């Protein structure tokens, strides 16, 4: 029990430290522009929290998070575009490329802010539930699930691009100006968007931690390690996986929704195969099974992308590729396993009977 208490205390300390850094240090240390970028990275980290749960703890190869991110993002952006346009007017891009004189029927519900906010989370969760129901019941696993997720992400992106009159096509929904009545042009409001995102990330981390350490979290690891065995214990592993998948989708949806006011754009470029892989890579680099690892990994990868491309605009993809290769091929547990390695070394030095346990294979 002491071990548990120690872990819990450390978690609280880490959580408080993170909150302090996000709310008290970053806003003062960073320029408006860098803070805006941090807000964007935090959105990536929110997706990573879900990936840590679904992939790290549940072993689900979630390569279609872009779809859920996009659903959340579009739900939010649709509402903001409608309010930007004002009552009775069509959003700017519809005036340019559209054929209809009024809002398409499936845009109408998004006029309502409550519906739109709920949809940012519930829409991805519903889609994930339907998909997961089919996929997990039929026991589509491993590599198949990975390829299938990618195909779906790609199909969704192609569909969005093809519907230019109602979705903005390749452009996506751009030039978002207001956020529930607050002008996004104003740096103070941008800063508040950052605070909302930071608070949401912390809330998601707390939620994920609760789930991971709950009985459900233990069961999820059990399903990851031996699905068949869990079935013999009288559980339906499909349901166990479904919960993690749906929660991860909801987190990605919320991240997408908050990405919109932070960056001012949502487009199919954030939905296809490449962004879906990038979401996963952040969590993998940091350590998929560790919540802290996944979050810091996502932040680090997003930051590295910006920093490397600013420093070496013409050759940065070498470094990015190299980072992925080194981190994943040679550090299967991600950067988080480094601390574990260190802790184990220290423990061995103290000759205490610590038993090494590898990360997920």
């Amino acid at each position, binding site marked *: 029990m002491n071990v548990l208490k120690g872990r819990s205390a450390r978690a609280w300390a880490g959580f408080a430290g993170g909150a302090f850094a996000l709310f008290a240090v970053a806003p003062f240390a960073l320029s408006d522009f860098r803070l805006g970028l941090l807000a964007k990275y935090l959105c990536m980290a929110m997706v990573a929290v879900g990936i840590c749960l679904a992939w790290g703890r549940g072993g689900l190869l979630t390569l279609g998070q872009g779809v859920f991110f996009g659903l959340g993002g579009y739900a939010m952006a649709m509402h903001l575009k409608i309010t*930007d346009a004002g009552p009775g007017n069509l959003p700017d891009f519809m*005036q340019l490329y559209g054929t209809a004189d009024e809002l398409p029927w499936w845009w109408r519900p998004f006029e309502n802010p409550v519906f739109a906010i709920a949809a940012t989370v519930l829409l991805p969760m519903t889609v994930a539930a339907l998909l997961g129901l089919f996929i997990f019941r039929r026991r589509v696993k491993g590599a198949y699930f990975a390829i299938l997720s990618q195909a779906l992400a790609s199909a969704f992106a192609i569909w969005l*691009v093809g519907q230019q009159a109602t979705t903005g096509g390749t*452009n996506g929904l751009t030039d*978002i100006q*207001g956020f529930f009545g607050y*002008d996004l042009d*104003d740096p103070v409001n941008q800063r508040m968007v950052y605070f909302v995102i930071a608070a949401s990330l912390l809330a998601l981390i707390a939620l994920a931690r609760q789930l991971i350490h709950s009985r459900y979290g233990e069961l999820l690891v059990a399903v990851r390690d031996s699905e068949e065995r869990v079935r013999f214990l009288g559980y339906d592993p499909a349901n166990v996986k479904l919960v993690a998948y749906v929660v991860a989708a909801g987190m990605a949806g919320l991240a997408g929704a908050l990405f919109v006011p932070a960056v001012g754009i949502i*487009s199919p470029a954030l939905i296809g195969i490449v962004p879906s892989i990038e979401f996963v890579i952040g969590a993998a680099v940091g350590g998929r099974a560790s919540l802290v690892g996944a979050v810091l990994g996502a932040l680090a990868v997003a930051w590295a992308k910006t920093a490397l491309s*600013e420093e070496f605009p013409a050759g940065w993809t070498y470094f990015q590729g190299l980072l992925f290769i080194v981190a994943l091929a040679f550090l299967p547990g991600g950067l988080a396993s480094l601390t574990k390695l260190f802790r184990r070394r220290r423990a061995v030095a103290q000759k205490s009977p610590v038993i090494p346990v590898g990360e997920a294979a």
Partner: protein
Amino acid sequence: MSSGSPILRRRFLAGGAALAAVVVLSACGAKTDAAGTSSDKAAKIDISGDTVKVGLLNSLSGTMAISEVTVRNSLLLAIDEINASGGVLGKKIKPISEDGASDWPTFAEKAAKLIKEDEVAATFGCWTSASRKAVKPVFEKNRSLLFYPVQYEGLEQSPYIFYTGATTNQQIVPALDYLKSQGKKSLYLVGSDYVFPRTANKEITAYAKANGMTILGEDYAPLGSTEFSTIANKVKASKADAVFNTLNGDSNVAFFKEYKSAGLSAKTMPVVSVSIAEEEVKSIGSQYLAGQLTAWNYYQTTPGAANEKFVAAYKAKYGEDKPTSDPMEAAYTSVYLWAAMVEKAKSFDPEKVKAASDGITFDAPEGKVTVDGATQHISKTARIGKIGTDGLITEVWNSGKPVEPDPFLKGYSWAADLS
């Protein structure tokens, strides 16, 4: 653009305070507010020292790199030349390159970085309409200037963008006029699935309706799509007089290879392309393209001393086998135009530069161009070219004099319903 209710310039004070209270940081929101930051100020420009920075925003990786890298090359060439002759307002231009990575949100991020962190005086770049749409609000909000060097679909006029490529009435409309004069009565439209082709085709359809031409079919392929056998079959079966091609990038290569395989050629059914310049001809091969038509404002073969100098300088810098093309020329020209505006305004301040822009002229490789201060587009001579077996494009028709820009096609009665 949108004429809706103005957004309340409210601040997040109440909500912010509540949230901040929760995280025991109640001072945070108020403090920033007290500082009274406002976005109404124009972006700061760093003119300390003897250099002035400009941003170059092009895709150096991803699918669009195939086109955009050449634009960056010619931007750098123009900057070198201007610096060699003394710079602008006595300051040397220092280019800051950023990679848009063929990803529109990245373009927006990098645009903001150039404006806010590097404090550039102006930014040059973007290729796709999608990337332009993504950065447009960034430049508008920060009151910083973008020079956009690629032909586009029109129907836009941002106060902080200068459009140095052709708008529709300088490229597509002349191409249609040319086809009409050649007796072509029916067209088949092929394009990539994004804003420019879809909008251009709407305009083409309206033109055709008013001019007694028929549109026999309209097909779009996703950007990057390389499977065109079905579209080639459809085009062939339509027996159209000509094809109007608004495909972009990789797709053109696959389309023309398929086109020839289907037994179609410039003789049986000519294709007019608006996104195939010398660089693309080189990558597709004259084997497949000989005799086909293009519509631009500039070709490597365009006569004149200014072009001879440009082509020679480009080849000297980047290699004898590197061709020059319309978007490269428009990019090259855009740097000179900006420099001229700055010299006239005697300031790097975007508002003053804008005010000074009207009537600025430059003897560009494509001929004399003039900036129209009202639309922030430039007048350009329209040219129809034919692709030769040597891979070069030679002019077969031109508009005689520069065509005034008309981004919203206000001077064309058939276009009344378009925007």
